[in-house]
């Protein structure tokens, strides 16, 4: 019987990681579900839901040559991967400012208290080496309304970060 697994792969970025990993899984008869694959720093990170007849050791065996060639670290967990109703985000938060510690924790703690359920968060460090800037983008469900989140985050402006809270109006047609 096929089971769902969450596979996490991390390694130094280089061309061909996605192609090699997914080809090995395809050849082993696996089926991919939702995935996230993104470069963080000079690492490449892959998280993917994989449906497989094989158990964890079988998955590891299928990927072994690729892991060795590309120096990737693999983590495998049993997971729920069945299709599910997807929450529709209704708020988007954009934060940027001079890089300093605590931006993500301050934004997300205040937003969580104001009813935010995060569906997607990405953050980047840009700018120059001398003056790095931090850019944080969040999408989620505002369970107590967008204005509650807007009010909760407004005081952070005084700490020198720029905060935009925008409703996401989804047009269903």
């Amino acid at each position, binding site marked *: 019987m096929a089971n769902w697994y969450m596979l996490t792969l991390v390694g130094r970025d280089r061309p061909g990681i996605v192609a090699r990993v997914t080809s090995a899984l395809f050849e082993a008869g696996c089926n991919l579900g939702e995935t996230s694959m993104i470069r963080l720093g000079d690492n490449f990170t892959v998280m993917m839901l994989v449906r497989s007849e094989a158990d964890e050791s079988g998955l590891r065996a299928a990927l072994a040559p690729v892991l060795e060639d590309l120096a990737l670290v693999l983590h495998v967990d049993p997971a729920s991967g069945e299709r599910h109703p*997807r929450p529709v*985000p209704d708020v988007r938060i954009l934060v940027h400012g001079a890089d300093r510690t605590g931006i993500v924790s301050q934004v997300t703690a205040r937003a969580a208290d104001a009813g935010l359920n995060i569906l997607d968060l*990405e953050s980047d460090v840009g700018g120059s080496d001398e003056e790095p800037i931090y850019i944080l*983008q969040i999408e989620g469900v505002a369970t107590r309304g967008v204005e509650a989140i807007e009010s909760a985050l407004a005081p952070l*402006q005084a700490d020198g970060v720029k*905060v935009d809270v925008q409703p996401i*109006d989804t*047009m269903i*047609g």
Partner: protein
Amino acid sequence: MSVLDILVYPDERLRQVSAPVQAFDGALQEKIDVLEATRLAGPGAVGIAAPQTGWFERVMIVDVSGRKKTASHGHLILVNPEITEWEGWVMGREGCLSVPDYTGNVLRAEKIHLEAFDRDGNPLSFDMEGFEARAIQHELDHLDGLLFLDRLVSRRQDLFRRKNYK
């Protein structure tokens, strides 16, 4: 009133280009009523296009008047619609009765001028913007066999219009 089944992607019929309506007769009126009943039976759709129900003529219904703070021309039944002017671009999130459980970012013209006929064949003309203009463009795409999936822009693009704190 009975409602029609919604065609769901990847049904190839959604790719079909619909034909202009030739006669504003009783049969057309009946079909329009069933199309509206089908829209209202769906999950919160502000618009529907005839081909989503397997009716391949250039008819669509849009009604964004139920939304707060949204410029609207009310409940619109549009036959043989045509956008004759476009202005500006704006990113927005769209979903579709024919693409359940997925939403994505799409660039649309911010303002449009629309020419169409009403259900009795009288000419209509509108200047529209924002959410209503988006709904019109989404439904008109269906008449040409296009889905919002054909126009997806990455979620990781920061092209939303900023609303800044004062």
